[in-house]
C-alpha cells in the first residue's frame, strides 16, 4: 500500500524567492506530521503546494496518485485544507457552510443530493455542532467557528487533512480541545494529518513526528525529543528556551536571558 503523502524534491517559487527548497517527505496513512519552523520558513507554502493550490517543481503522490496530473476536483477529494484564517461569511448558517465542503462531490452545476446532506449532518454531529446547525457563522465564538471549519473539512471526506496553524486564534483551553478533536477524528476516520504549528510544546505532544523547516529547507525530522533541542531552537527560531521532558512529553519553555550585570 502506498504512503498517504510522498513528496520528492518539492520546491515552490514565489516571485523571486524560493519559499520551499527541495523538500522530500513521506507521511504514512493515519500519521500526524507536525510542521514547525519560524515565520517565513515555508510551512504555509508547503501545505498549499501539497493541496495543489500553487505551482511547484518535484513530484507529489497522494495515496499513490500523482498530484501534477490530477484535476482540481480529484485533489479536493483527497486533500482537505484548513487555512490559517478561513473565510467564514457571517450570514451563512453552519449547515450551509458545512455543505459547501461537499463541493468536490457535487457536479459542477448541480446542487446537494441526499447523500451530501447526510455527510454534512454527520460532520456536524461529529463535531458536536447539532445545536448550532441553523445558527449564522457571524454569531459564533472563535472556538465554535474553529469546529465549524473542521466540520466543513470533514464533510469533504478527504483522507488527508492539512491544517495551517489550526489554533492561532484560540485560547489555551480551546487550543487543546481543537487538537484533541483533530486527533479523535484522525483515529476514527483514519485520516492522515499534517499540521503547521507555532506552539512547539503542543506540536510535540500531538504529532507523531515533527519536521523542522527553515528558509524553505528541511533541517530536522524525527520524534519530538529528537527535533526539539535548545540548540536547534536557538539556531532557527533565535529564541532562548529551556527544554523540559516530563511523562514522555517534551515541553519548550521560553526563557528570558539573564541580563549582564550593570557596571
Amino acid at each position, binding site marked *: 500500500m502506498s504512503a498517504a503523502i510522498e513528496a520528492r524534491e518539492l520546491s515552490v517559487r514565489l516571485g523571486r524567492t524560493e519559499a520551499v527548497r527541495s523538500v522530500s517527505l513521506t507521511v504514512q496513512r493515519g500519521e500526524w506530521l507536525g510542521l514547525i519552523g519560524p515565520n517565513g520558513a515555508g510551512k504555509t507554502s508547503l501545505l498549499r503546494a501539497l493541496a495543489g493550490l500553487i505551482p511547484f517543481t518535484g513530484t507529489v503522490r497522494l495515496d499513490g496518485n500523482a498530484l501534477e496530473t490530477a484535476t482540481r476536483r480529484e485533489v479536493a477529494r483527497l486533500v482537505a485544507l484548513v*487555512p490559517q484564517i478561513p473565510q467564514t461569511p457571517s450570514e451563512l448558517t453552519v449547515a450551509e457552510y458545512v455543505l*459547501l465542503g461537499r463541493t468536490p462531490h457535487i457536479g459542477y452545476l448541480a446542487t446537494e443530493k441526499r447523500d451530501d446532506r*447526510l455527510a454534512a449532518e454527520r460532520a*456536524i*454531529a461529529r*463535531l458536536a455542532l447539532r445545536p448550532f446547525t441553523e445558527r449564522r457563522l457571524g454569531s459564533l465564538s472563535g472556538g465554535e467557528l474553529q469546529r465549524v471549519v473542521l466540520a466543513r473539512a470533514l464533510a469533504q471526506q478527504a483522507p488527508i487533512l492539512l491544517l495551517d496553524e489550526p489554533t492561532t486564534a484560540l485560547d489555551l483551553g480551546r487550543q487543546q*480541545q481543537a487538537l*484533541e*478533536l483533530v486527533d479523535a477524528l484522525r483515529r476514527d476516520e483514519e485520516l492522515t494529518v499534517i499540521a503547521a504549528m507555532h506552539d512547539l510544546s503542543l506540536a510535540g505532544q500531538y504529532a507523531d513526528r515533527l519536521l523542522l523547516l527553515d528558509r524553505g529547507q528541511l533541517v530536522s525530522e524525527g520524534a519530538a525529543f529528537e527535533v526539539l533541542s535548545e540548540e536547534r531552537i536557538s539556531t532557527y527560531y533565535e529564541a532562548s528556551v529551556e527544554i523540559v521532558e516530563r511523562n514522555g512529553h517534551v515541553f519548550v519553555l521560553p526563557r528570558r536571558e539573564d541580563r549582564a550585570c550593570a557596571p
Partner: protein
Amino acid sequence: MSAEATRERPLATKTCSRCGGEFGCLQGQSGCWCEAVELTRATLAELRASADDCLCPSCLEEFAERDRRLTEAQVRRQRGWAKALPHPAVRARGVSPLWAAAAALFVLAVLVFSLANGPLSIGVGAIAASALSHLPLVHVQSGLNALESAIVWQVRAPRVVLGALVGGMLAVAGSAYQGVFRNPLADPYLLGVAAGAGLGATLAISYAAAAERAGELLPLAAFAGAVCAVAGAYVLGRSVGGARTTGTLILAGVTVAAFMTAVQTFVQQQHSQTLQAVYSWLLGGFAGASWHQVLLMSPYVVVSSTVILLHRRVLDVLSLGDEEAASLGLNVRRTRLLIVAAATAGTAAAVAVSGLIGFVGIIVPHTIRLLVSSSYRAIVPLSLLAGAGFLVLADVLARTVLSPDELPIGVVTAFFGAPFFAVVLRTTRRVGM
C-alpha cells in the same frame, strides 16, 4: 477524548422529553449523548421525528438496547430507510415558496399595471379579455377597440416586456458580478461595459448617422463596445498576472473604462452637434421599444441568466475566497471567466437596446440580500424577478409623471436608487460579504 474537552459552555441541564427527568446535556463523549450512545440510524431518525428535544442518556440506552436485539438483516433494512431522511435543518436555504410567490406576484401586478396605465387609461378587464381573445379555442369578445388594441399590444406590451427583460438581466448580472468579485459595490458596468458601450454608441452617432440603417447600427456598436471593454479589461488583468486577485481585474476595468471615456469625450468634442443624441442615448430608455428589439434581446437574456442561475451554488462557494474555493475543487479562474462572460453578454445586450440604466444592478440584489438571504441561491433567481418588476415600474413612472413628456428612465432609477444606495452603504456590515 474526555467529556471536559468538548464542553464549550457550562453544562446545560435539560429535561428529558421522554421521561421528564433532568440530565446534563452536551456531556456525551463528543458533545451530544446521541453520539455517545450507539443507536442505529433508523432509531435516531425515529427519535428525531417523535421527540421535541434531547433525551436523557438512560432513555437513549433503552433504545440502544432495543437496537442491539435487532437482527443484522433488520438493521440493514432500517439503515436503508433512515438514509432517506437527513435532518431537515441540514440544508441550504434557497428561495422559500413564500418569497417566490411574492416576487412572482409583484412582477405580474407591475406588468398588468403598466399595460393599463399611460396617457390613455385602459381597463384591466378589457386588456384581459383582449389577451384571451388572441388565444386559440377561446371565444371571448375583445374588450378593446382597434386603437386601444394597438396601443396595448404594439406600443405598451413590447415596451413592458423589453423593460422586464432588461431589468431582470441587469439585476442578475449585478448579482453575478457581486458574487464573482466578492464586492458589494460591484454592478454590471464594473468592468467597463458602460464606457465601452458609450464609446461604441458615440462613434456610431458621430460617424455613421447618415449611413443606411443607422438605427440598427447603434445597438450593434454599443454591444461591440461593451464586450470589447470587458474583454480588454480581462486580458489586461490577466497579463499583470492578476486574474488570481479580483482587485487587479477591477483596476484593469477602471483603466480600460477611463481610456474609453477619454476617447468618447474627444469624439464628442469633435462632433458637438451630436451631443444631444449621445446624451439622450446614455440616459437610457424604452421609448422606441418594439417587438423586434424584444426578439433581438431575449436570446441573450435567456442564455446569460440561465448560465448565472446554474452557477448559484458555485457563487456561494466563491464567497469563501479564491483559495478556499480552489481547495474545494473549483477551477476558480475558469469559473470566474465563464460567469463574467455570461453577465457581460447579457448586460451588453441590455445596454444595446436601452442605453445605460444605472442602479438596477446594485439596488435589486442588495434588497434581496437584506430582505431574504445572502445566499446566491436566493439572490440570483429573486433578482431576476424583482429586477424585471422594478424596471417596469420605473418605466411607468418615467412615462406618466410628466405625461405626455417622458422622463429619462435613468433619472427615475437613480432618483430612487441613490437614497437607497445610501442605506445599503450604511448597512453593508450587516450584508456581510
